[in-house]
């Protein structure tokens, strides 16, 4: 019994920490979301108005745009990251770790600064325009900065490694003999990919999607830097309401809403992860001869 109390006591600081710094703010935000705006603060008058406002077209558009951006970014990241992860894994030798390191090095620089780099590329008469006009592809500056595509590029740029690394890791663990066996038994390269490689690397793909979609809902600083005021995401909206419109309850309601949305989507994505078939003992696991 002494051991039990000792263990509880030892964990006590951790509980306190979580209580004060995690649960506390969440509860505060939840309570705030039901209060009424009062000048620059909030009055303790219960209301559901904040939540109703979320569904006003003006604001709900932002929600839809955030979801749309998340989907687009995730789709592009998958399209680029999945083949990349597979190919670098199958190159063998030192190549997989080489590419992993190559991917990581830019991350030594703060992502904010790297996005500023994209501004230099995207702005009118910036790097991209200079190159394209020099090659004769375009005659006028593209004005890509502060547009939706620019934000998508920024998102994909920042989130790609998560997909690439998940897929590569799973692909590295793939038993190559399975590919050889598939070919030997009569399957061509395409069929082998569809029947063997794809199913067995799917867990990596799903993890990658999870690690891409969730952050893409929240990384509003990418939208701020590359999209300016033209591309407004849920996160930007919350910031705006809190810092500039001084509407704390509404900002709180938006935050709670965003948390719920992200939470539900995560659960849905997790639900669809396949069983680990290796531990499937439904049909009996007796290993007798």
């Amino acid at each position, binding site marked *: 019994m002494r051991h039990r109390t000792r263990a509880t006591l030892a964990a006590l600081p951790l509980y306190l920490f979580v209580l004060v710094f995690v649960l506390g703010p969440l509860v505060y935000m939840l309570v705030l979301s039901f209060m009424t705006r009062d000048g620059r603060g909030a009055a303790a008058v219960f209301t559901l108005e904040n939540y109703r406002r979320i569904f006003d077209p003006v604001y709900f558009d932002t929600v839809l745009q955030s979801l749309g951006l998340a989907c687009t970014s995730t789709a592009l990241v998958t399209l680029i990251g999945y083949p990349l992860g597979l190919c670098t894994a199958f190159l063998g030798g030192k190549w997989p770790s080489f590419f992993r390191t190559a991917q990581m090095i830019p991350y030594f620089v703060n992502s904010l600064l790297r996005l500023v780099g994209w501004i230099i590329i995207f702005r009118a008469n910036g790097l991209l325009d200079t190159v394209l006009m020099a090659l004769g592809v375009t005659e006028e500056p593209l004005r890509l900065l502060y547009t939706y595509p620019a934000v998508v590029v920024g998102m994909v740029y920042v989130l790609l490694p998560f997909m690439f690394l998940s897929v590569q890791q799973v692909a590295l663990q793939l*038993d190559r*003999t*399975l590919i*050889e*066996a*598939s*070919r*030997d*038994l*009569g*399957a*061509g390269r395409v*069929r082998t990919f569809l*029947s*063997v490689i794809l*199913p*067995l690397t799917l867990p990596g793909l799903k993890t990658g999607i999870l690690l891409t979609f969730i952050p893409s809902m929240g990384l509003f600083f990418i939208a701020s830097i590359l999209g300016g005021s033209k591309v407004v995401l849920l996160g930007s909206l919350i910031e705006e309401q809190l810092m500039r419109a001084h509407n704390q309850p509404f900002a709180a309601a938006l935050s709670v809403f965003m948390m719920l949305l992200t939470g539900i989507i995560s659960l849905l994505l997790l639900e669809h992860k396949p069983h680990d*078939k*290796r*531990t*499937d*003992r439904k*049909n*009996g*696991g007796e*290993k*007798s*001869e």
Partner: protein
Amino acid sequence: MTETLSDTHSPADPILDVRNLSKSFGTEKTGGAVEVLKNLSFTVGRGEFLTILGASGCGKTTLLRILCGLETADEGTVLLDGGDITALAPEKRPVNTVFQSYALFPHMTVYDNIAYPLKLKHTPKSAIRRRVGEMLDMVQMTGFEGRYPAALSGGQRQRIAIARALIASPQILLLDEPLGALDFHLRRRMQTELKRIQRALGITFLYITHDQEEALNMSDRIAIMHGGGFLQLDTPAVIYDSPADTRCARFVGESNLLPAVFSAPVDCDLVAVSVGGQTLCVRRGAYPPDAFAALKPGSPVTLSVRSEQLQLCSSTVPADSILLSGSVSEISFAGGVQHITFTPQGLPDTSLVAVRYGMEQNLAPGMTAAFSLSDGAAALCLEESAT
């Protein structure tokens, strides 16, 4: 090396004809090219169970990979039933492989694993169902359709791998040390199983192993492989009685190598040699022709003698035999069979092992024992350093 093979049982209408296969790995950068297969040629008969026996590094796995298409040879041709398959992709060859690690697809059930080759051929579902049932029945695993490979034991996975490789009725089945991971008793049972399946289906089996007992047990012919080529390709009986050289002798059975001095040929099959002063007739066996032509009276030769040919006897020599007596150094008993190791007089560096049946314990290390060796029992065996 292959030109001097005494291949007395070459099939007339071979299903597989391998010609001048050569393969090297590596470049100057990795320390020089290594020749893994050296100008290898051989044929395999229809419905034959051919075992390629060799130690690790002899090139047997490379040979198998070239035959199934996963690797391409630098030079040479592979003819399957008369057709050139040398450049054919693995999925297009009617050759299937049972891999050493079984390579069962972990994300598919036993049924889907076995059905895989037929699904690739777009066989109708009802036919697939019937064939999978037949295969499971053949490997005695009916009822396991819904299980996943992870829930199976090693021996069970083995059998599913075999079923999967045979369901499309390939012309040749390649087996890469399939029984290596199994325990002794299971291995013995599976050897019988494999032989039974092979006989029942009549499919040509090309079996790779380093286990001589397996080879002797199952094969119609054995190819002893070393350094990228075959030392000897013949039936187990011939290799056992007449190993081509000392490496082959060591590979198959207990090798008793007796130094002798060549005297003269007696007839086309026998030669006279002198063993410690005594004259003995020995078989020419599989001694390479060019080496035989170089023998002169007085040339030192090596004889291969099987343990059961050394008969324990009293001091009187039976007719047409020589006597080898010496000090017993070791006796081991193994269930009714005694292995007696002794050093013959006059040949202090030689150690011979004789067998005796029964558990009579009238011999002990240190005692002198006499063994007779009859004419025609031993065979000439080329002395080769084991490189």
